[in-house]
């Protein structure tokens, strides 16, 4: 087991880690002084101020009308109430009783699954893999699995795509593209990008050779299923044929055949929903985390699942080793990383083992720095050499990113993000990817 006390002390005095060269991390004080890479990505500074106005499009005529917030049901209920004088007494009493019963039952249901009382946006923020999702300028980020290409979802509900081969950076906008919580590129395909939105699932087909900077919304497929919103997680199968989407409200997760636009719901009631899905890189297993202290591991041949109850809290984040045999996960409320080992032989693992302890550790140097906390997100690079861990903030560092060698505790480094405003998620993932590229 590895703990943070074994790590070398972090950089201090405003120094930030810039890049890795010759197996050494190079630190500097300004982000400009790094070596040129083979692809110099365009400027990726998205100031929050420029993003905000787009998200609130005020139509001019709208202000002239009074906004009434009553739904049709509320209005008819009001009318009903006013008519109640002429209704017989027993009817009013009995319907009042029925109403109270329904309220009591729904509150009981809500107490079983507290997340159901959240609004859509709060729910997305709660279950997102991104730290401080609701306030972050960058809502989601996705590397293409095969080429130098990535997509960035911004606060104003637009998605930008950057490609090393072309100068154009298409911006994707769609009427239904609200509150993007996750994105993933389709494996074995150059163009398809799945986007988890507030009400539906969008699959964009962005032609890589097209020069258009604003692909029309006709390029997007809308996949929706009643009761399946907000979608908080998507995962393509590594063979590129299936797409799985999950919503914390829906107890079924959907397996989509995207081209044919039909889906198979896989329903399991326990847990109250599915927050996060992640496919093992060899395609044989699928992790489905629920909002309760329970997660499931599906095998993808006959689609049966095993239940894994956690003791403390829900599974916050998880990642698979490249061969699909190990699963690392973190649990909300605990500062450790667990590991599960699967094998094709009979008899799976009985319990998870703790492999890393991330409790708060103070490094004394020129100024004391405390690192540690709950895990927000985990990512394992495709070669299996390094594991990146994003920690939730302490008072000194709003968040910190550390990475392990996957031989765990052989060599480790930790890295502070470039700046401490909430726009740091990008740096986290890009640094992980650039580590693999060097």
């Amino acid at each position, binding site marked *: 087991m590895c703990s943070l006390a074994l790590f070398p002390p972090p950089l201090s005095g405003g120094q930030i880690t810039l890049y890795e060269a010759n197996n050494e991390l190079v630190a500097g004080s300004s982000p400009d002084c790094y070596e040129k890479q083979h692809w110099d990505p365009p400027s990726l500074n998205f100031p929050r101020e420029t993003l905000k106005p787009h998200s609130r499009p005020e139509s001019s005529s709208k202000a002239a009308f009074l906004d009434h917030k009553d739904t049709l049901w509320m209005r008819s209920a009001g009318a009903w109430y006013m008519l109640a004088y002429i209704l017989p007494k027993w009817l009013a009493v009995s319907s009042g009783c029925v109403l109270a019963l329904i309220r009591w039952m729904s509150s009981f249901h809500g107490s079983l699954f507290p997340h159901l009382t959240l609004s859509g946006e709060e729910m997305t923020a709660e279950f997102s893999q991104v730290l401080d999702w609701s306030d972050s300028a960058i809502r989601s980020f996705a590397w*293409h699995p*095969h*080429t130098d*290409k990535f997509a960035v979802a911004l606060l104003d509900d637009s998605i930008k795509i950057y490609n090393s*081969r072309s100068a154009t950076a298409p911006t994707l906008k769609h009427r239904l593209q609200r509150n993007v919580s996750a994105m993933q590129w389709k494996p*074995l*395909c*150059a*163009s398809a990008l799945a986007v988890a939105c507030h009400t539906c699932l969008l699959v964009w087909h962005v032609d*890589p*050779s097209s020069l258009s900077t604003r692909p029309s919304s006709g390029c997007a497929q809308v996949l929706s299923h009643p009761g399946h919103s907000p979608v908080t997680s998507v995962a393509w199968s590594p*063979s*590129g*044929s*299936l797409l799985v989407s999950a919503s914390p409200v829906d107890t079924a997760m959907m*397996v989509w*055949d*995207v*081209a*044919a*636009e*039909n889906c*198979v*719901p*896989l*329903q399991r009631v326990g847990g109250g929903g599915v927050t996060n899905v992640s496919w093992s890189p060899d*395609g044989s297993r699928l992790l489905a985390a629920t909002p309760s202290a329970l997660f499931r591991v599906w095998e*993808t*041949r*006959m*689609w*049966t699942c095993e239940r894994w109850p956690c003791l403390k809290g829900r599974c916050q984040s998880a990642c698979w080793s490249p061969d699909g045999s190990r699963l690392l996960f973190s649990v909300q409320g605990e500062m450790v990383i667990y590991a599960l080992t699967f094998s094709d032989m009979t008899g799976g693992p009985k319990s998870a083992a703790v492999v890393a302890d991330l409790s708060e550790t103070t490094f004394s140097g020129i100024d004391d720095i405390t690192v540690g906390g709950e895990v927000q997100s985990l990512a394992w690079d495709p070669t299996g050499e390094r594991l990146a861990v994003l920690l939730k903030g302490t008072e000194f560092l709003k968040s910190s990113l550390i990475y392990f060698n996957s031989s765990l505790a052989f060599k480790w480094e930790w890295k502070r993000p470039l700046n401490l405003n909430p726009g740091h998620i990008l740096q986290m993932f890009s640094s992980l990817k650039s580590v693999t590229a060097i």
Partner: protein
Amino acid sequence: MLSFNQDCWFVRKVVRWRALASIAWSVLLLPATTTLFVFLVRFSLFHPVEWISECFGLLTAASTIFSLILLCGVVLVIGFFNLEGYTVVPSIPCSRVALLAKVLHPRQCVHSLVHCTVGMMVMWCASVMAGGRYQALGSPCTRGESADAPEVCLNEYHLFLLLAGAFIGYSHSFLGVVQNMNYVSFQIIQQYKYLRCKGSLPWVLKCSAVQSLYAVRNYVALYFFFGHIPRAWISNSLNLPIDSSVHSLDSLTGLLDFSLLYHLWISGAFLLLTWYITVLLFRIYVTEAHRFPVQSTFAEDAEQCLPKVLSEKRTLIMKFLALQDLALLSQHSPPRRQEVFSLSQPGGHPHNWNAISKECLALLSDLTQRLVAHHDAVASNGRARPPSATSDTRTTSNSSVSSAVVSGTEDLPQTPRPSVLLKTPGSVFLKSSGRGISSPLTAPFTPDLDSPFSTPSLRHLAAQQVPQQGQWLGSVQSPHIIRRGPKLWSTSTDSQANGSALASPVPTPSSPPPEQKSSFMAQWLQNRKEQVKGFMAKRVLVVYLFNKLPEASSQALFADSQAHIWALEGLSHLVAASFSEDKYGVVQTTLPSILGCMLSLQEAVDRHFKLPHASSKPVKTSCSMGDSTYKTLRFALRAALKTSIYRITSTFGEHLNAVCISAEHQKRLQQFMEYRE
């Protein structure tokens, strides 16, 4: 009827048992649905205790037991029809008149008749279980003003329910044709039968409730206008007088009876539920994956092995299941892949791989040819080329391939048909002879090979005649090209222009002398025909009936594409796995042809999607039992094709530059390797 005659081991040993098991399960589920029905139909809000005790009493009554036995018989009949009528390749009518022909086909009429009868039986059971005023056809008359009134009168409520059963039975059968309810689609993921059944039960419940609602609406409207006819007929033939003191049901006051409508709806939902469950279970059982051995040590089992089974053309369900098995084994089981890559023991030939890859490539190139032929034919029609003898024979002399296709599809009596005609007894239905000279009205009835006029046995015969790939002229006879017949009626101006263009026939220099002799007669016939066509094309009804439905030709072209998708998946996974698992390099030898085949299919598919209507998405049907998967198969095929090529390029990478394929394909492959497609 027909599938029992097929002497195929798979139907005998697997499909029939699966059908039997599904019927057995639907019979076992009957008591549950009946209990649910009894509780719902006897529901009374204000006497809950009475309601429950009454229901339990009723469930053990003799009449209910008898009804259950009757319902078992009904389920057996429905199950039998499922087994007889199912298909894995839907037949898609290209025009409204073809659809009409499907509905009026004798086999379909028998189907509808049986469903009407069976629906009446279910409704009789329902009315017996509902009790009360629905109990029997005769009821004691209310003594009115005259004392000499008869003892027993006609109970219109009972009759109303019985007729509703017949109506719902017929509409089930009718909608079955329109929505291709006999089409069995395969799931995108594999699940155990129990879980799949559990997962789709709520949907089936909802479906039957919604469909029953629609049926009740239609039936009530129908009864309001025409209800007096069957009532009078029954009353006369059974000598049951109509009670004049009771409101008749074909009036507003009679029909606006809430409890009557509720009982009708619940009974209709019960009827549809039992039938839908039978259909659902049959689908689940029949599409369950079957594991074929890759090779067998015993000679007598050789015909059950995957390479043999794949080349089967008669039993489509077996071919589909074999392809599915191939796709699954190529993805999930390394030991079985080893068997595919293995060499034969004496001799050292990769027979398994050769047979499998050959069959898959044949499937794919067949589709490529179909697409190319369709594209050529449509492109020539799209340019409004007059289908006259002059232009066509001229192009025949100019270009060889495309015009051969065109002349095969346009009706030209004087052009000698180069391809072999079908010599089956039923070939009249297949429109292989006398197509041009006969009245143009017959054309839309006949072109569809899958139309009900061609019975399954005929379809099998035709399948045997499906041309060998590689022969251009042969592919003209493929059903999907012939199906294009109604296209001629797409625009009226087109055919009018044709008529005028024909005024001055030019004898072609290339045509042989004997043909020139008969050319005057042929020209005259052609002229008459064009005139008739021009006349008919101006009539609105004719245009409405004969107009091609948009998308239909595209859907028909890709109707069996599930097979191609599996072939693509299986091949690409096997090729990708061969990179590390193929010890003897058996795959390497076929890699160029696999790549070439996939790339030319990709080109054909790309071209096809540029046609109008090809890339338009079908409207989603909300809640019906009909499976509309076939409508989107072409999109699925396109995606699967791209993914397959990418799978091969991403596995082999730079090594593919050493594979010798044509320069054009090389260029296309380069696009894939750079992730630009």
